[in-house]
């Protein structure tokens, strides 16, 4: 087991089919949504995060830009990326809710197809539900 604290780290997989910048966006967004990264905090400078992950600056810059476009960050020259107090977006329309439910169904089906025990999948979903309820 790789014993790095899970709380304030991000992890990417260079061999994954998913582009690295999207993995960085997903990892950072998880921390932002969970509140582990709070408004007013500053994310590591692009250069520093790129060096630590062993990727090109542009990869991290692209990820930060995407999060800025989504309203999570404010990018300031030489001052890094400031985490914003993002307003809750308007409630999703029926079609978006259906898309979300479909994606969740597909993800659960994929996990079960890969051999994950149903109990484990259910426990992970329950843990997420608890986190959201808090």
């Amino acid at each position, binding site marked *: 087991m790789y014993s790095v604290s899970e709380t304030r*780290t*991000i992890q990417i997989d260079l061999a994954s089919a998913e582009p690295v910048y999207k993995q960085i966006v997903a990892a950072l967004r998880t921390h932002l949504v969970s509140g582990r990264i709070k408004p007013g905090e500053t994310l590591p400078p692009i250069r520093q995060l790129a060096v630590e992950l062993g*990727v090109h600056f542009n990869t991290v810059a692209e990820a930060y830009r995407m999060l800025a476009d989504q309203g999570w960050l404010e990018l300031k020259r030489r001052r890094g990326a400031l985490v914003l107090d993002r307003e809750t977006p308007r409630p999703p329309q029926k079609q978006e809710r259906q898309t979300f439910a479909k994606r969740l169904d597909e993800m659960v089906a994929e996990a079960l197809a890969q051999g994950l025990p149903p109990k484990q999948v259910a426990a992970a979903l329950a843990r997420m539900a608890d986190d959201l309820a808090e």
Partner: protein
Amino acid sequence: MMEPNWLFVTITLALSLLLWMMPTLSRSDIFFGVTVPPSFRDSPEGRHILGRYRQLMTASAVLTLLAHFNDFLSSSLPVVILALVSTLGWAWGNHMTRPHSASVSPERRATLDGARREPQISLQARIGPYLILSAATIYLYFYYDLLPDSLPVHWSGPEPDRFTPKNWLAVFRPLIMATAISLLMEFTKATLASPNFTRRLIAPLEDDRESRFFQMNLRLLLATQYLMALVFSWVAIFMRGPHAPQLMPSGWGFYGVLILALSLLPVSIYISMRYGQGGSRLPASSHSLTGAPLGDRTPDDCWKLGQFYFNPNDAAVWVEKRAGIGYTLNFARPLSWLWLFGIIAGPLILVRILR
């Protein structure tokens, strides 16, 4: 058979010892610049490759010394020959190890908790070399009139064999050179210590061995700055200064410089053997990282001849060396070439300007 030059013999032996040790100074999952399972080094194949490399290094050291004793080699050649043989031997070891390589983990992690917090070298310690050089400058300034009209600039032995007419530039040239080199080393230390340029593998809180190793590297660089300041001040004061004949008996100044210049060699060898790459030879603390992914977070394919790192997709300028211990440059980054240009061309340009 000629009288041996013991400086030559000492440098050759010390260098050979370091090169002989080099493959076992790496982290346990890096062997001749290739990522391998940690157990590979002690396997029959691993021992065979290591044995052959060491035979080659021993033979080249013996031949170099024999050539010197028979008056075939000048004093600067052994370093070139040994470095060349070592590079070829390493490339051969790399080639032989590649079929046994383990897959490098594609997993990458980064902390979001800002820059590393590590003890810094105090300001008092950092300004020491400049204080030494300033003291020598003030001394020469006040006793300028007492300096002889002709100043020695070259020594092949205890007595000088080349001179230059006295002027302000000639008097202060060694101290200007030392200051310029020291400033270049400041730049090296600053970029090495910055998380914007150097990748470290393990967070200090999880395993402090790498952090201790890194601090030792910075202290060694500072020690080199002190040594440079002392050597150049020594030359300026005890070998060509206004009171040199009274302060130092004839010839002692020359031997003093040699002793000073070589004093860091045994220290460096001891530290290399004690620490190993990234502190891997230090005893693990109770909270040391276990089961970390294989590799040093650099792809094997980006290591040319197992020694030179070239990865345009990596933002790091400094990464851990795979041959020997310490840090090396990512040659795909423009700053690396700027640094290399500074370290090679800088002193040459300065000498030209000061002439």
